[in-house]
């Protein structure tokens, strides 16, 4: 199976062709919003981090920023910093250069002489980059070039009965075709980590699966909190999910049935053609999706029992529900109805249909989240600001 994508100079293949206006910190985020509004073909996001963070938190921010710039859906990046933040321009540029050799420009607001001059400079860089990007022609590539990130949010019992099962089938197909599938959301392995660990390809991967779960629980206990405080959420419970274990047992279906080949830390670069891998991310959807996109996922498949509009600035997000009521109620937001699986549908047929949709979306078909303009995202953190 093949899709039409964009070859990047670092060898990766993108399914979109956007220019990223990257805010190095919260203090550059309004500026990048204004810049992006002036340049059709560019994207940006609201970076709430980038300064006054403890070391490990700053690293999470740096990894998301570098990973976003390196994501193959991005043609090139204009980094905009304020100038005095902890995520200094040279650090951001170095982190990006470690992941990719794509076009890169820099604007520092304090050095440019304030808002208007910085915007002027950045808009001109971005317009030039979009013009270059628009000359690129799509080529045919095998789906082994795709990294698909899997996510579930606003779960209900149908997620574990249908939508996540269908995503698991897609995951198996991706692996069978030589591609990559990422299973995320460490908090939603809790109570099911032993099942996942049994599928580890090596004893090291097995230990890592237990480690990331226990590390997550311990991190919350350091501030006197338990992971169960927010899980299952009120919406999960209203839908019929009772305990975190029940939610987790449904959640891990997204990983299908193939061995877990590797465990990646949050937002680290995933090696293409790796089979099924795990990434250590929160259950919080926008920050989990952001980490997988930073890891290089070109497409996200997202299940939701309750329904959600969520998208991402860089990767198309395909939304799937197993709840026939939600599908009818939120049809403007949900791309795929997986509920036939509960009522006698064939998993193989539905899986093949989903694979076909993934290939179409990779080739340019807009998802509902894209057509509605959804770009919300978040960056994970473990500590308060200093």
């Amino acid at each position, binding site marked *: 199976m093949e899709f039409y994508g964009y070859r990047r100079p670092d060898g990766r293949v993108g399914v979109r062709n956007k220019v990223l206006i990257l805010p190095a910190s919260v203090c550059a985020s309004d500026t990048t919003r204004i810049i992006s509004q002036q340049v059709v073909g560019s994207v940006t996001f609201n970076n709430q981090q980038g300064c006054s963070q403890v070391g490990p938190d700053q690293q999470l921010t740096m990894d998301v920023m570098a990973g976003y710039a390196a994501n193959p859906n991005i043609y090139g990046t204009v980094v905009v910093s304020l100038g005095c933040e902890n995520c200094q321009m040279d650090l951001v540029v170095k982190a990006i250069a470690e992941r990719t050799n794509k076009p890169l420009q820099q604007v520092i607001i304090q050095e440019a002489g304030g808002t208007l001059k910085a915007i002027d400079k950045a808009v001109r860089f971005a317009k030039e980059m979009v013009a270059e990007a628009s000359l690129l022609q799509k080529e045919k590539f095998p789906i082994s070039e795709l990294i698909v990130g899997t996510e579930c949010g606003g779960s*209900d*019992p*149908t997620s*574990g*009965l249908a939508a996540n099962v269908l995503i698991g089938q897609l995951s198996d197909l991706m692996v069978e075709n030589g591609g990559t599938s990422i299973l995320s959301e460490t908090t939603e392995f*809790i*109570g*099911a*980590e*032993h*099942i996942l660990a049994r599928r580890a390809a090596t004893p090291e991967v097995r230990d890592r699966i*237990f480690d990331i779960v226990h590390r997550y629980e311990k991190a919350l206990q350091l501030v006197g909190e338990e992971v*169960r405080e927010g899980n299952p959420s009120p919406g999960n*419970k209203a*839908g*019929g999910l*009772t*305990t*975190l*274990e*029940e939610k987790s*047992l*449904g959640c891990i279906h997204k990983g299908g049935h193939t061995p877990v080949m590797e465990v990646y830390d949050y937002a680290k670069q995933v090696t293409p053609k790796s089979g099924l891998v795990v990434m250590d991310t929160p259950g919080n959807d926008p920050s989990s999706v952001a980490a997988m996109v930073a890891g290089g996922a070109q497409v996200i498949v997202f299940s939701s*029992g309750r329904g959600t509009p969520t998208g991402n600035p860089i990767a198309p997000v395909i939304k799937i529900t197993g*709840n026939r*009521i939600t599908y009818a109620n939120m049809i403007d937001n949900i791309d795929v109805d997986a509920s036939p699986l*509960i*009522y006698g549908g064939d998993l193989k047929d539905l899986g093949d249909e989903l694979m076909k949709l993934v290939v179409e979306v990779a080739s340019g078909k807009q998802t509902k989240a894209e057509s509605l303009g959804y770009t919300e995202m978040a960056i994970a953190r473990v500590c308060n600001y200093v």
Partner: protein
Amino acid sequence: MRNAMIIDGKDNVAVAIEPIAKGDTVTYLCGGKDESLTALQDITIYHKLAIRDIAKGEPVVKYGEHIGVAACDIKAGEHVHEHNVGNHREELK
């Protein structure tokens, strides 16, 4: 008509796949044949009900795995949710 389902033969709860009213017959597929019981309460679609009596302290089983512990005696046909299930962290290594 089937209006509920179990996922694993070890499960002691079924999931309603249609709205179920108190007194309705609940039918689900188990090991290739239909099993039935009577709903003792209204069950919202996609919520769980006990398919056999679960004594206080016994594990509640779905997906063939423990999802929690019965916080009180639960009768077959009763709604199973937060009000009668406690959760506890198992050592799973």
